[in-house]
């Protein structure tokens, strides 16, 4: 195949060309309620050619790897329709690399019936619990082998192995129906999904407790975010703003995101680091053949960096950050995160809570999204804080606000650190779900607007 790829690359009429081929097997087990909803393996094979001509991209994706030359020609024709300016990609080292998955407990070696048994056991914990009317449990592993080659001589074959599990429990009392969930995932091997009984039990407890929880009253609160919500904040509210594709094309936003601007308290550092082994958001090379890096976005309260593709870095005269990612062969690489988190500091959880007269402790996120500086996240659950003590659980807690104001309002950063991946992932430009991780310590934020009753 290597010979065919190199030959096809040699035939293109463009400033820059790349070919990316992918083979993937997804093995999954899903329980919905007491029933096994789906089980088995799906196979994917496909590839793409991306061509750059005078600053314009042409892209062709396909399932059949026959006639690569013709696909190269088609991508070049498309690029010529687009290109009217100048091609400028940030310079990166030429790489030749072969990365193999090397795990003691490779999920591919585990027979399907063991995976079914495991999912069934976790599901049983949920369905056998009182008050639970429905459950879902998903086990999934994905083995992906990707070959990347470009006209600069880079040739990389990288294998990735994701493995994870997700639980959801639905509890019902009359017309009141509540749902709780949890998910884990990573690239560390099959042990990622073992011994999760306590997580399944906690999910049941959360769903049942939510039945009794009052809806939160809307208003402004001092909020303590747990590491999961902190991660969603780091990723959704700030991380997406650091993605240079939007910034490089919008001069006003570029000004708002000028490096060196003060964004938060001196103790605040936010970074994206895709090099952390075992994390779901880990990779060695991005989908442009650039090595993953540890990228500080905010360091000690100052904006110091952003996430780049080679094109955005080239345009802004900054360094490529290894952040051009694609969910599959069907998509062009775009600027994305890997593992985004807030660095821990020294405030203990007790102190953080103890100083609050009236507030909310928000735990775990159901989801979140941003439209640039405006963000909205929903917490899976939350607890009232009264006079320095945790109070009863409340539900339907949705946090909203302006990220710049919120960053300034972070007034305590915890001494703990947790990173989370999961079976879900990030969505952008129709590419969903991209495996990512996020996290941080507990953090405290003043004046957060909470929607509710």
């Amino acid at each position, binding site marked *: 195949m290597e010979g065919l790829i190199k030959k096809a690359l040699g035939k293109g009429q463009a400033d820059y060309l790349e070919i990316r081929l992918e083979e993937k097997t997804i093995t999954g087990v899903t329980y919905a309620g007491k029933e096994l909803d789906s089980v088995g393996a799906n*196979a994917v094979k496909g590839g793409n050619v991306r061509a750059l001509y005078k600053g314009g991209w042409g892209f062709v994706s396909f399932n059949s790897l026959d006639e690569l030359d013709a696909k190269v020609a088609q991508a070049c024709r498309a690029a010529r329709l687009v290109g009217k300016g100048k091609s400028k990609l940030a310079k990166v080292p030429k790489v030749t690399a072969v990365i193999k998955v090397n795990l003691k407990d490779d999920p591919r070696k585990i027979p399907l019936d063991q995976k079914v048994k495991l999912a069934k056991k976790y599901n049983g914990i949920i369905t056998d619990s009182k008050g639970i009317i429905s459950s879902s449990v998903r086990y999934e592993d994905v083995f992906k082998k990707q070959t990347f080659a470009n006209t600069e001589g880079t040739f990389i074959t990288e294998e990735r192995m994701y493995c994870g599990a997700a639980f959801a429990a639905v509890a019902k009392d009359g017309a009141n129906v509540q749902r709780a969930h949890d998910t884990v995932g990573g690239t560390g091997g099959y042990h990622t999904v073992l011994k999760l009984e306590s997580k399944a039990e906690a999910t049941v407890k959360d769903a049942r407790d939510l039945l009794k929880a009052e809806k939160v009253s809307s208003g402004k609160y001092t909020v303590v975010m747990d590491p999961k919500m902190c991660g969603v904040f780091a990723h959704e509210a700030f991380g997406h703003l650091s993605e240079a594709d939007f910034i490089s094309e919008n001069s006003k936003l570029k000004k708002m995101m000028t490096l060196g601007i003060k964004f938060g308290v001196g103790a605040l550092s936010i970074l994206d680091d895709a090099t952390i082994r075992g994390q779901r958001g880990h990779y060695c090379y991005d989908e442009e053949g650039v090595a993953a890096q540890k990228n500080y976005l905010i360091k000690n309260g100052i904006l110091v960096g952003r996430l780049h593709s080679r094109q955005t870095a080239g345009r802004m005269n900054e360094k490529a950050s290894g952040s051009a990612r694609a969910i599959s062969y069907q998509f062009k690489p775009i600027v994305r995160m890997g593992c985004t988190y807030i660095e821990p500091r020294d405030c203990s959880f007790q102190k953080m809570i103890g100083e609050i007269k009236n507030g909310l402790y928000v735990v775990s996120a159901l989801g979140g999204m941003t*439209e640039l500086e*405006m963000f909205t996240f929903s917490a899976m659950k939350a607890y009232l804080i009264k006079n320095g003590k945790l109070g009863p659980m409340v539900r339907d807690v949705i946090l909203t606000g302006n990220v710049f104001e919120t960053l300034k309002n972070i007034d305590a950063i915890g001494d703990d650190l947790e990173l989370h991946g999961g079976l879900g992932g990030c969505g952008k430009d129709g590419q969903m779900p991209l495996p990512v991780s996020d996290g941080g310590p507990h953090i405290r934020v003043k004046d957060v607007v909470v929607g509710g009753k």
Partner: protein
Amino acid sequence: MNKIINQILDLAKKKAEAAEVILVEGKESPVEFRSGKLHSVEHKEIKGAGLRVVRHGRIGFSSTTDFDKLPALVDHAAAGAAFGQQAVFNFPAGCKPAGVKTVDPQLEKFTPAQAVAEGQKALGILAQKAPALKCDIGLNKKFYHVSLANSRGFCGEYDKTSFSYGLSGVTIINGSLTFIEQERRRGKLDLATSEMTAKMVRMYQDAKKTAKLAAGKMPVLFTPEAMSLLWMSIALGVNGKAEQKKTTPLLGRLGEKMLDPRITVSDDPLLPYGLASAPFDDEGVCGAKLDLFHQGGFKNFIYDLQTAGILGKRSTGHGRRSFGAQPSPQVSNLVIAGGKTKLAQMIRNMDSGLIVYDLLGAGQSNIMAGDFSVNIGLGYKVEQGKIVGRVKDAMIAGNVYDLLKNKVLEISSETEAMGSYGISTNTPAMLFDGMNVAAK
């Protein structure tokens, strides 16, 4: 019928008592503009197959895009069947598909160069009338060929075209980013450039002022764009799987007046050029227009073969899927009857309240129960029947069933085809009374 399908069926019949293959072959040509400039022209070819088998009475499934390894596809499906659900259905031997318009010959002829020209036309209009907006544009033409066959002899295929056209503009007004978007998704070519740009210009002009809003209860007008959020809950509620799992609030309420008597919601897989139109569903069952709610009364759940089998009902022809997944009940095109008042008149009739277009954070609440609590991405304050400015940092909360039953003031006579949140709808705008609005 396709050679590959026969090959897969022959292999599968050796390992299973019944089998079904869906083969999807597609081509898409997305053209994208970013910040006012042509960004990319793409071609995507997709060819994939899904195999469902019944082996020792149990269901197995697998899919592939690797046509060099068909025996592996059959092995995967057979292996999965060891753990699969008990099949409570037979594959259908056939049905008489009704005629339905799913292919637009005009769209087939539409070239990427023409898409580029149309995008440039839109950019030209917006650059002149709303120069502050930085615009992204996407035009995508899709052509699909779907083939379906099973071991009981069903054998059907059809072509399907669809076209999506999206305009989005961003600018900073009074120090805050403002997004203005228009999107069309249709089964046929729909170059509504003048209409869409005119609407964007109007929305932009209206957003130039920021209106102060006091929190409290007020009337809120949901445009067709925003109505999709409510129909998403309804689509989940009528799903037969939610009935089977007893998670829907509609459980056991057939015949009950669940919604305002002015509301009739149908599901129509035969809607000409509907986004989700098809002569038969993805299991080979022929569907027809079905009332889900008639004058507020709850009429029907929707089923696929397996869910219907479990509940002792018949499939309503709503087994839908991509080639990579097993079928599950899903609505096709939701068609909601229009009301009596013109949209413009509805706004004039409003004393004071809100108009909402774009809602952020949809899907984060308990959607099945109908609960929602969303940030207003783009919304306007109305005073004495006139738009006075854009509303910022506000949220609205409520329950879909409560709104659609108890709070409907008016329904617009105009309806619009929408494709948001993954469902195809044809919906009017609705004005709701006394909604909870939280503001900063």
